[in-house]
């Protein structure tokens, strides 16, 4: 009883509110999530090698880099007019107003990934990967919630 009374005292001092998440994935949102997850998985392959968690393997690294470069080509096409809607997209509508910049940034990602596709040492991989990650971030900082 005392516990309830004390809670009541606290209750009047606190605001109320609740948050709900709506599940409303559109095909475009699904496509974007899958593309981003794919790139993320390849980045992980590269990063594990660069950080020494697994031995450096230039063939595997080249494959992952090439795969990222290919997916980067799709990015400008994954955000068509009217597709940046719903609770589950983190994309900002400013992508639509800055199409050209978004395309330039996607190309920079592709270029950084291509630059990695002929690496011979873990040191090259580390510096190239840091540059590649920076291109991801340059877009995330501007065009993601």
């Amino acid at each position: 009883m005392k516990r309830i009374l004390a809670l009541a005292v606290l209750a009047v001092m606190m605001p109320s509110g609740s948050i709900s998440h709506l599940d409303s994935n559109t095909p475009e949102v699904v496509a974007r999530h899958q593309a981003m997850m794919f790139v993320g998985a390849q980045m992980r392959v590269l990063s594990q090698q660069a950080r020494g968690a697994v031995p450096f393997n230039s063939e595997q690294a080249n494959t992952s880099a090439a795969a990222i470069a290919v997916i980067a080509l799709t990015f400008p096409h994954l955000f068509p007019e009217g597709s940046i809607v719903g609770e589950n997209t983190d994309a900002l509508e400013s992508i639509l107003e800055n199409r050209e910049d978004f395309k330039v940034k996607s190309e920079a990602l592709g270029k950084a990934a291509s630059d990695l596709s002929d690496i011979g040492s873990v040191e090259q991989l580390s510096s190239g990967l840091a540059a590649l990650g920076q291109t991801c971030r340059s877009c995330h900082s501007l065009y993601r919630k």
Partner: protein
Amino acid sequence: MVAVAALTLSWAWLEARGRPDSAQLLDMAPSEFSADSKRGELVFHLGGCADCHLVRDPENPWFGTLAGGIRLETSFGTFFPPNITPDSATGIGGWSQEDFLGAMVLGTGPDGRHYYPSFPYTSYAGSSIADLLDLKAYLDEQTPVELSNVSHELRFPYNVRSAIGLWKLFFHEIEPFRPNDSRSDEWNRGAYIVNTLGHCGVCHTPRNRFLAERDDSPFSGGSPMSPGAKPAPAIAGLDNTEILNALDEWSGAVSENSPMFLVTLAFSQHVSIADSEAVAVYLSSLGP
């Protein structure tokens, strides 16, 4: 109303008697333990202390001193983290080990003042006493900076500090982390980091109407703490790779303007891959 208050206070007093004091906490340190600042440096980075307490060097925003830090803007007002350099007048230089444990575990200052849970002692309380004493040893070695603390600017009723004492009786459990024997060492290491030092739930767990983290849905996405702020996303049950990328600056997954980026940097630059992987193993094992 007076009766309610009297009952509440008498109950609170009874309840408070059952809680440890900082001297008892110090007794919980392992026998023949000697604090090590090198180990404490890792605790510092796992604990994300710099995220709030670092006064950034304008030339290089990832460096600075621990003499205050960010303005923590919330719907209840603005919190100003204090100086945690070893300056004896304005920092924590005069603190004993007991004082430090009292702050980190009990959420109480050496003068008996209750700290606001914007300082995440609700998570730190589960840390091992050894880790906390190592952390103190590390902080003691930092450059002392003389800079007075700024008072929080909170609106009523949040500026009634004594109410925090009451809040703590309900929502601040002083329980050391207990490993789950049916899980691997890696899982338990991850659980320890996430739930204690890493204080991931502070942002990623929804809060109840008393602003305490909800036990029933840990890491299922945070509550917005200020109008218009984007709540931190759900991290329970995420894919292993997604979690590891969020902890790796090279992945580019977390943007520089996200509050998470400081955590990403700390894990990328100071935390072992084994500890990052342990965090991912634990979080990905939880239901979404």
